């Protein structure tokens, strides 16, 4: 904060700190983070740079502002009508915390149950291993095309690209994912990957890319949805292999759950002979009863509906009903590294509702692409840097004003602001050389912990009056980092005397 004129050229005061007693980090423990050569967890630019570009896109900002304000109002209405929301939220938080505390046991139970019901369980250490497993499973069926249910995990690991490299076409069937795929674009939201596109842009993409589409297609949402139905119908009916994610997996019964709206999920989960579900290991929940909590929290937080149109649940294979060949791929890809951080592990509680994105003032203005990861918004800003190691996404923990709106709406009460602050510290403490910022903050710490030095520094700040040359505000053109403030806001001229000085003078001290 430039308001303090304690000198940007502060001398790096040597300052000794007590060694941390709780240095339990993934790096220290040797638990690997998500690999660099694959997947979509890292961006090409830092957040401030990417956001600067996004801010100039007036269409994007209008689309996002409209969509997020619509969903915020819907969510508030359906959450407001639930008298026991606070109790459900607390139960959701507690179930997730209890699950993480015994994650190994629940995964073993899940594996046993899925296997007992005719499914096959695979374990994937990282994105590359998961992609290889899925590719091999698809190749074993002889199919060269798979239909996909929207899944964050498969986006994260870059499964579509891996399949494509093996000559297998992956067809996204969720409407928004289809829009993104046809538009050769990237998803920008957890729930609505095409939130950055408005109806007329979507019409244009469909008109350009869907073979044989009605040339009279309008931008009416219902007409656009119909165009997607027609486009995908025949592909669903001929599909032999489907790939899905999972919202929840119940350890005690082996039941998998996919929550959706359109029916594309049901098509994929029901019609093909082979179903491959890729699931992050943190999606397991211990008991059947736990679902009664999450099936209330998720739809209201997510789409602002009392219940989403379709939820599918299945345990292994059911003779005569649905896929007869079921594979479950349990994915780590950095999750165990997140688990190793006692503060940060709460990010694994996320049920991917995206309520935090919809209320975030930073997300609303920057859009999802600026985060560089498939997980954007507040939850992405705490999840992505932990999955990759904080140095690979070092700007994300700072991509928040810490306003706390995300924590308020989170259905499982993830304290995102506290994790952001924690990750900022992890980043700072990972630096091996002293940055100018660190030098300044260390000097300021020394100053602020000594009343004598603090009073001297305050006097020095008062010298800013000379810059103002009698004006009530400082000049707009100050050197960096003060310029980052003064480019768009005035800075008041520091007063002649601080309050504490004046008070001491008046009260005779």
């Amino acid at each position, binding site marked *: 904060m430039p308001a303090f004129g304690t000198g940007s050229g502060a001398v790096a005061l040597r300052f000794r700190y007590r060694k941390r007693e709780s240095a339990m980090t993934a790096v220290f423990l*040797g*638990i690997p983070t998500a690999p660099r050569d694959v997947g979509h967890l890292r961006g090409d630019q830092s957040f401030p740079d990417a956001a600067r570009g996004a801010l100039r896109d007036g269409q994007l900002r209008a689309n996002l502002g409209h969509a997020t304000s619509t969903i915020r109002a819907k969510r508030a209405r359906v959450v407001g009508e639930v008298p026991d929301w606070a109790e459900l939220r607390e139960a959701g938080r507690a179930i997730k915390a209890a699950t993480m505390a015994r994650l190994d046991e629940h995964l073993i139970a899940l594996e046993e149950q899925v296997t007992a019901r005719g499914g096959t369980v695979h374990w994937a*250490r990282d994105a590359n291993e998961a992609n290889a497993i899925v590719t091999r499973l698809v190749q074993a069926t002889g199919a060269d095309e798979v239909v996909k249910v929207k899944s964050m995990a498969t986006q994260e690991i870059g499964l579509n690209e891996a399949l494509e490299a093996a000559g297998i076409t992956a067809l996204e069937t969720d*409407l928004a994912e289809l829009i993104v795929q046809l538009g050769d674009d990237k998803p920008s939201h957890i729930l609505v990957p095409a939130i950055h596109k408005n109806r007329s842009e979507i019409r244009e993409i469909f008109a350009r890319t869907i073979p044989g589409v009605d040339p009279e297609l309008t931008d009416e949402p219902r007409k656009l949805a119909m165009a997607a139905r027609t486009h995908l119908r025949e592909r669903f009916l001929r599909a032999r292999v489907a790939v899905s994610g999972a919202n929840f997996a119940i350890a005690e019964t082996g039941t998998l759950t996919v929550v959706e709206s359109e029916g594309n999920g049901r098509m994929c989960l*029901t019609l093909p002979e082979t179903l491959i579900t890729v699931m992050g290991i943190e999606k397991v929940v211990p008991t*059947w009863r736990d679902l009664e909590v999450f099936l209330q929290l998720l739809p209201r937080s997510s789409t602002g509906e009392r219940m989403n149109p379709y939820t599918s649940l*299945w345990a292994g294979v059911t003779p005569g009903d*649905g896929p007869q060949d079921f594979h479950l791929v349990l994915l780590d890809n950095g999750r165990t590294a997140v688990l190793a951080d006692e503060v940060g592990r709460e990010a694994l509680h996320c049920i991917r509702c995206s309520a935090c994105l919809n209320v975030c003032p930073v997300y609303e203005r920057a859009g999802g692409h600026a985060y560089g990861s498939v997980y954007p918004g507040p939850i992405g800003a705490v999840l992505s840097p932990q999955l990759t190691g904080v140095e690979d996404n070092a700007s994300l923990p700072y991509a928040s004003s810490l306003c706390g709106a995300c924590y308020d709406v989170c259905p499982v009460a993830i304290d995102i602001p506290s994790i952001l602050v924690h990750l900022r510290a992890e980043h700072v403490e990972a630096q091996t050389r002293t940055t100018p910022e660190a030098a300044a903050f260390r000097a300021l710490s020394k100053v602020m912990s000594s009343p004598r030095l603090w009073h001297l520094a305050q006097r020095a700040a008062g010298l800013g009056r000379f810059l103002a040359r009698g004006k009530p505000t400082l000049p707009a053109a100050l050197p960096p980092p003060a310029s980052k403030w003064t480019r768009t806001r005035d800075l008041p001229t520091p007063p002649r005397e601080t309050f504490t000085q004046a008070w001491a003078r008046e009260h005779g001290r």
Partner: protein
Amino acid sequence: MTAREEILGRIRTALGPDRAAPAPIARNYRTADDRSAAQLLDVLTDRLEDYKATVLRCAPSEVAQTVASALQATLGEHPEADVVVAPGLPADWRPDGATEDDGRPAVELAGYAATVTGVSVAVAETGTLVLDGSPVCGRRALSLLPDCLVCVVTGDQVVGGVPEGLARLEPLAPLTMISGPSATSDIELQRVEGVHGPRTLLVVLVG
């Protein structure tokens, strides 16, 4: 080391040697409902209609007739054989001339205009019907492929909230929870009904 052993090992390392027992989970949310059966039927009707389902109430003796007239209103004049029903659907619920699902390849069900099934449970507060793959509900593809879905719900199947609903279900069955017709919010986060699943949902409430 296998991936399984390695991941489980990482989890154990991450959680550390002395793990505290997880705190007990306080389930202080509602798990029962003191509303009367009639009130629950009204709530269910309201919620279903809110999501653009059509609700028809009838007496137990009028089911087949109500189903037939609802199909007539939706499909217009149609061949009786265009309607397929779950194999366990009671005879007195079936519209005349309907085909029974005989386990033919699932994709062939796409050729029918409408399906009639029962349900396992209905949750009033969320307007949710649950089909459990039993003979009266049919296999999952049956309630998915035809464009019009008719579900017959009896009064004793209606519960207040989600916890009561889940408590009545068999977790190992292939379950489908249906709340209104297929819909999407993917365009500007506005809900529009009708994408890949049935675009019309007719609910016959008995009693």
